[in-house]
């Protein structure tokens, strides 16, 4: 059976649009609420990235940090995250879930145990921010054996030679970091330049899906819609923080935002 991640891209292609990927932090602002958010946004999002909060995140900007610290403060543990995924999958069997986080959480859980748990809870892909290629080769192979996509990150600083090597080793989905920044930073380059870079990379192996992430908001998403997929994270985390501050329901507000994002790429 094809990985639900590939199915999601296929479906989006049939509808002649980019896939919409969302990123929310597991346990933000509570275990139950983060599950409710996933359930609610899954109507409009094609692939759900679930952030594994970590307290020394070296690549995340302030919005995702705030969400992560909030989740950790509320007591989220690795096993709770697997439970959230499992519960979500009970009612959304085919909606792909990608866990995104830092390697120490996997390292402490034990690579093999972690992957076993991914399988039993229904995780379809992994993004490990601080496990670059070639350091990730062994682990990526283990993922493949378990039918989990290990998603490689590509950056504007990745050299041509390196891009080719990474893509050759990669699974069917890759992630292009739009610019030199942490997550949620302002776009420092124009969408046009991002796409120019993007299509250069895409040409290396057109069969592989490449999504664009970092700095994508309601304002910029429409201009990037010719990509295979687009990830929105910080803007959603910000919406949760804002809702909490104004004593509004984050589930409703985030759902509205995701619906709006979707409408911009149709």
């Amino acid at each position, binding site marked *: 059976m094809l990985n639900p991640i590939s199915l999601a891209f296929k479906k989006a292609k049939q509808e002649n649009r980019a896939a919409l990927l969302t990123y929310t932090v597991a346990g933000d602002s509570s275990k139950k609420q983060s599950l409710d958010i996933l359930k609610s946004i899954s109507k409009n999002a094609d692939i759900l990235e679930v952030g594994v909060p970590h*307290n020394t995140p070296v*690549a*995340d900007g302030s919005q995702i940090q705030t969400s992560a610290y909030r989740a950790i403060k509320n007591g989220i543990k690795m096993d709770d995250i697997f439970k959230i995924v499992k519960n979500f999958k009970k009612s959304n069997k085919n909606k792909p879930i990608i866990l995104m986080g830092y390697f*120490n959480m996997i390292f402490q859980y034990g690579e093999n145990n972690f992957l076993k748990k991914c399988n039993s809870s229904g995780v379809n892909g992994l993004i490990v921010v*601080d496990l*670059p290629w070639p*350091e990730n080769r062994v682990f990526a192979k283990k993922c493949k054996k378990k039918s989990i996509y290990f998603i490689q990150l590509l950056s504007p600083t990745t050299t041509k030679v390196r891009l080719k090597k990474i893509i050759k080793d990669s699974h069917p989905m890759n992630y292009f970091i739009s610019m*030199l920044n942490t997550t949620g930073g302002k776009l420092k380059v124009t969408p046009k330049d991002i796409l120019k870079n993007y299509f250069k990379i895409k040409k290396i192996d057109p069969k592989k899906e490449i999504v664009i992430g970092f700095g994508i908001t309601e304002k910029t998403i429409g201009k990037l819609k010719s990509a295979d997929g687009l990830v929105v994270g910080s803007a959603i985390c910000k919406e949760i923080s804002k809702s909490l501050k104004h004593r509004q329901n984050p589930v409703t507000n985030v759902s509205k935002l995701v619906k709006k994002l979707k409408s911009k790429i149709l």
Partner: protein
Amino acid sequence: MKIKKKIPLIDQVSKLGFWGGKFGGNYVPETLKKPIEDLEILFNKLKNDKRFIAERDKYFKNWVGSPTRFIKLENLTNHVGGAQIWSKVVSDANGGAHKIYNATVHCLLAKRSGKKFIIGDTGAGYAGKMLSMAAKKFGLKCKIFMGAKDISRQQPNVKAMKKNGAEVIPVYSGSQTLVDAVSECMRFWVANCDTTAMCVGSTVGPAVFVRICGWSTSQISRELKVQFIDEFGSVPKKLKLYNCVGGGSSSFGFWNEFMDYDKKQCEFIGVEAGGPAKSKKHAAPLTYGSKIGILHGAAQYVNQDSDGQIEETESISAGLDYPGISPLHCFLKDTKRARYTAASDEEALSAYKTVIKFEQLRPSLEPSHAFSVAIKEAKKLSKDTIVVVNSCGDAYKDREILEKRLGKKYVKSN
């Protein structure tokens, strides 16, 4: 796991940057792969380049002020009544601590790579102060990331950084100490690595930063070896080198030249920060058996919970208040080349009192940890044993803490 002889420890790394097959590495976001690789190529070339070494030595001699003194603490030795207690007064160096060596080398590297900006992290404020000094000297613009808690407890160094023209950026996330300052500094580098050089303030971080810092602070033991020969005619037959260990930069530099000596002749003792006697929190991952984890790009022993979240530390000494430890020290511990122990806040304060009572020397709270263990152990050692403590920082920066904990009479102003 074994240490090789005749190869500098900083070069005993695998292709992927691991010591002993499991400590160190490069657990970094993809964006940093290229700038790190560029820095590696530059450093590997320059560390063997005679002209670069001559340039380094020129600045170490004329600007940092080398060699720093190697003195016998006669009164303290008589008071303790055991081994001879000596000190390598590294706080003589320009700026008042060993951090100047690493800062100078990073600025020289930044100049060579054509970067105009340099950023750095700081805990006690020394790494930041020295980087701001070196940046000023070499005409680089400088930003220093510092935890908000450390900013309030290490004001003299904050003032010095600002005076040198550096921008001090307070970090409010997490525990608001060194660990968060390093994270924030790395995040800034992720966003600005095309124009900006990064200096990691200790022998921590991705492998190349561990190596650069170790290469720089090794100046301490190079000087000491010469001083031994001047003083005793050779390296002493019974030698014990005590040093505090936070990230591990001063201790590594204090020991490096003596790495190949048998540990029966030359023993290394690293003293970590045990934290307040009554608290469970500490900054001593080697002493208290913390598990291996990944922090700031490197695998190391680190204080963490079972999930892998990094735990908050507690220590009176901002310079030692770090949950991890250099991969070099993890390697030295597992190969049993060095021995590690901890001193509590109270023990460090008491050692400080003893040292200033008997000597014209005012070690900061960091080396006071090392003095605490050295004094205790020296009592039981023979008179022909040479105990050397690296006094790697001056207590000037700790004025406020010392006044609060010990009272005014223990604080001299200068």
